[in-house]
């Protein structure tokens, strides 16, 4: 059995142990999760494109040159030009903005609302829980893309409408996961203990429940990010997302791109690569993050 002196030493050395720096944590992540690190590099690249699109893009993405329709990829136009003579590379760079904007906002709004409903449902229990659960059941009765399609068709084609259409189907999925996590946290003895000590409901939720459901929340946000970018592309492809002449990746593939496929395959090729690479990055990163945060999947 450890003596008091030993225990005191243990505590002292624990406090003296160097706290891992952000760089240290990042290096460890790169070493243990090389695929996740590759994903992070792709995300950072996409972010840089979106932020510095004005500086990096060689041409105006909205202005076409009718003398240069369907120009092949060349030194002037690396990815060629489209049917209006617009530079495909510049449109892809600006397209990163739309993809990230929709991806971040749709997954953040959907996951946050879902997480809040999940915590409320788990903590209040009773009728509130029952009603919220039935509401979530109803929303879950619709496949994600179908519900998004229905909402987008009513709201009309615009970027902010796409955010709403994609975020609503996310809510019940996250609510379910967070509710389950919050329920198991609620059962812990320490939560019972702080309640017995007279902690207010607000304090219990803010200080004990929310910090403990952050891991599933972060996992869901990263997982939904890629899915949201993909959903935006699909909706835009179907003509329900961003409207012309917005340089959205999905929109660049819709309508004319397949019909000009034989004459100018680059119009359909490069935006598809951009979508796939972006979503691939988010999925790789999210996957490794889940592996790192979920003790069940750790190797050992």
């Amino acid at each position, binding site marked *: 059995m450890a003596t008091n002196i030993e225990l005191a030493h243990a505590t002292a050395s624990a406090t003296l142990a160097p706290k891992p720096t952000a760089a240290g944590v990042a290096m460890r992540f790169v070493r243990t999760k090389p*695929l996740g690190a590759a994903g992070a590099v792709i995300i950072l690249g996409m972010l840089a494109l979106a932020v510095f699109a004005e500086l990096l893009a060689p041409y105006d993405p909205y202005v076409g040159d009718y003398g240069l329709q369907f120009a092949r990829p060349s030194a002037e136009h690396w990815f060629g030009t489209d049917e209006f003579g617009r530079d495909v590379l510049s449109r892809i760079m600006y397209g990163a903005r739309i993809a990230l904007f929709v991806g971040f906002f749709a997954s953040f709004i959907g996951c946050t609302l879902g997480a809040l409903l999940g915590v409320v449902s788990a903590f209040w229990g009773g009728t509130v829980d029952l009603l919220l659960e*039935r*509401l979530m*059941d*109803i*929303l879950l*009765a*619709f*496949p*994600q*893309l*179908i*519900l998004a*399609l*229905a*909402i987008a*068709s*009513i709201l009309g084609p615009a970027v902010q409408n796409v955010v709403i259409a994609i975020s609503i189907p996310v809510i019940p999925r996250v609510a379910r996961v967070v509710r389950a996590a919050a329920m198991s946290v609620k059962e812990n003895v320490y939560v019972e203990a702080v309640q017995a000590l007279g902690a207010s409901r607000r304090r219990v939720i803010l200080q004990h429940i929310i910090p403990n459901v952050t891991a599933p929340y972060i996992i869901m946000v990263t997982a939904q990010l*890629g899915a949201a970018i*993909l959903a935006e*592309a*699909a909706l835009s*492809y*179907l*003509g*329900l997302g961003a409207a012309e002449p917005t340089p959205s990746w*999905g929109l660049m*593939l819709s309508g004319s*791109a*397949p019909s000009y*496929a*034989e004459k100018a*395959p680059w119009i*359909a*090729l490069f935006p*598809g690569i951009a*979508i*796939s*690479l*972006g*979503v*691939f990055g988010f*999925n*790789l990163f999210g*996957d490794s993050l889940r592996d790192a945060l979920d003790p*069940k*999947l750790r*190797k050992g």
Partner: protein
Amino acid sequence: MGTYVAKRLLLIVPTLIGAAALVFVIMRVIPGDVALLIFGGEAGGQIDVQFGSWFWGILRFDFGNSLWTGRPVIEEMLVRLPLSLELATAATVVSVIIAIPLGMLAAIRQDSWVDYLVRIVSIGGLAIPSFWVGILCILMLVIFFGWGPPLEFTPPWVDPWANFQMMVWPVLTVGYRYAAVTTRMTRSTLLEVLREDYIRTAWAKGLRERAVVVRHALKNSMLPVITLVGTEFAFLIGGLVVTETVFTLNGVGRFVVDAVAHRDYPVVQALIFLIAFGFVVINLLVDLTYAWFDPRIRYR
């Protein structure tokens, strides 16, 4: 088991009524004229009366008439259903054939190059939009073989070869994406099972790898995978919507997109409800299968 079935059956009734109400409300948000066109003539007046009349119609399989063709929605849908069912079934079969061996391989060689390769291929399948895979398929067929898939749907029992020619690319397109999800699930559930004590016992008994993995681990990790194949039906529907559009297949998925494009709201309303209905029923069947296999579920 009887009580469990009864409970689950009872639970889907409010869900379906709620789903019908939600679809109805979403469709009511549309600007005036169309709403009047759908509901004005027959019921008019109050929203609850309109909903009642629509819901009574649903119970009698009467979903109203298409604004575009003037024919009953149910008739229009039944014409398109065989194609979508064939596509869905074949894609599911293809996905399972690809996914289970790959997922197994990745799990038993966790963190080896095989695992990384399988993960990259499967995360890729999730990242690449299926409509883009479809566009690429058509591009390749047209550019390299000068061949386009036949336009008219021929049922497999009339001319199996013509049917195969038409369906093979859409099936592979949808199947690959679907396989990506199932591969990941097989990998992670098998990883969890491989860490169980009884697997360690099997190893300690000196059993060969094949016996441990196939007879002990795979069998027990298949339950969540079966559930996934069912619940990811949503993916399938989303896949059908875009894939049928890309390959101009006249199935239910494309019917939804066309109806949205034509603002044919009775059709949109009916199809979205019917898709939700199918989704709920499939989820119910999956749950029942799960409970049948795993007694712990029905006693919870």
